[in-house]
């Protein structure tokens, strides 16, 4: 097995997940050109690390590298976007509807595709990544924990927070 075979093996494993990799990078960087740069860099890193990949979940493995590459990129180029992690680990079971229940809020109306994209893009990075991995990539909590490198309880609380913020933003905008 030469290096070429390793590369082919890597491509076989990684390329089916290229769209998922790009989608995550695109949502994290919020810019198409930056997302392409991040994915290229992540693929090269992944190829370098491929020797240490011992089977298992290829998608999670690759997305974790894409995620870390994207966060490194944002830190280097847009440091203001990475705020210090909020203290969201205190109550992993915190859920939506901790506010008074407004009957109007029951109606989740989305005026168009651009609106929901814009509101998700406005979420803080650590909430946005959980939401994208769960709803768009359909990863399990465990897989999201593996990709983002945080405990399961934190994944749950971030996801809950992301949904709460998104719901509030939708209700606020569409009530006007």
């Amino acid at each position: 097995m030469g290096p070429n075979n390793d590369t082919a093996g890597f491509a076989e494993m990684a390329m089916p997940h290229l769209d998922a990799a790009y989608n995550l990078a695109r949502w994290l960087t919020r810019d198409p050109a930056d997302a392409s740069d991040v994915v290229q860099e992540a693929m090269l890193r992944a190829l370098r690390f491929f020797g240490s990949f011992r089977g298992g979940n290829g998608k999670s493995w690759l997305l974790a590298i894409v995620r870390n590459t994207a966060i490194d990129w944002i830190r280097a180029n847009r440091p203001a976007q990475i705020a210090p992690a909020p203290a969201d680990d205190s109550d992993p079971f915190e859920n939506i509807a901790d506010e008074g229940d407004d009957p109007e809020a029951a109606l989740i109306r989305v005026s168009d595709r651009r609106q929901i994209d814009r509101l998700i893009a406005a979420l803080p990075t650590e909430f946005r990544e959980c939401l994208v991995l769960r709803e768009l990539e359909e990863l399990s909590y465990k897989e999201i924990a593996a990709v983002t490198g945080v405990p399961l309880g934190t994944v749950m609380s971030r996801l809950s927070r992301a949904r709460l913020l998104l719901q509030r933003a939708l209700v606020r905008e569409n009530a006007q």
Partner: protein
Amino acid sequence: MTQRIDHAEAKALMQASLDGELDAMSQLRFDAHLADCPACTAEYARLKALSVAVRTQATRYVAPAELRAALAKALPLDVQDPPKPSNVVPLRRWFRPAGAGFAVGAALAASLAVMIDTRNADDMLATSIVTAHVRALQPGHLTDVQISDQHQVKPWFDGKIDFAPPVKELSDQGFDLVGGRLDYIDGREAAVIVYRRKLHMIDLFVTHASHGGGHPDSLPAAHATPSGYNVVRWSDNGQDYWAISDLNRNELGDFAKAWLGR
């Protein structure tokens, strides 16, 4: 009798229920609470609507062609042989071993796109079966009907799908029948019959055969997928079968043989 849960506990379980992450018992208890709590029912509906809105309306970005081309240059990849159309799907083509069947291609820039776009349909199918299997392994998702008796599993499928998947009792050969569920593979309805060998779950996906198909002329052999699961595929009597498991290849091959009665 399931133990009742209070309002606070139901709230704590709500998101996990929405995301299909509850074990069967917690799910039952949550459902029971929902049945007589209008507040939780409304809140659950709201969460569900939000989730659906995100899934259906948010953009899933697709890697641009230029990125694929740039990656093709960066990674010294070769072009995969285009798969030849064939009535009989060679069992060994499921996932080629790394490097096998690759030839040096002239158009490197296009190679990655070629490789993706021409991945043969079976590879895509295998990927979606792996995905379905992994999803099913999440707590509470394994089986819709959990009965270890073929006479109960078989009628359960009646009226749910338009074909009758054979449900075989193989416990005398070390494969215990656990139950069944419905799934979708590549847009087709599939009956999934779930077996267990020791601690390993085996999902047997059954669909209408994609191309006719009589009795297999050779014994199927199991193959590893890149994600580490082993898969074995065969066709029999107009139906396609895929067995997937983290069981080792030999034993999964034994499962196929046992099922085929050989």
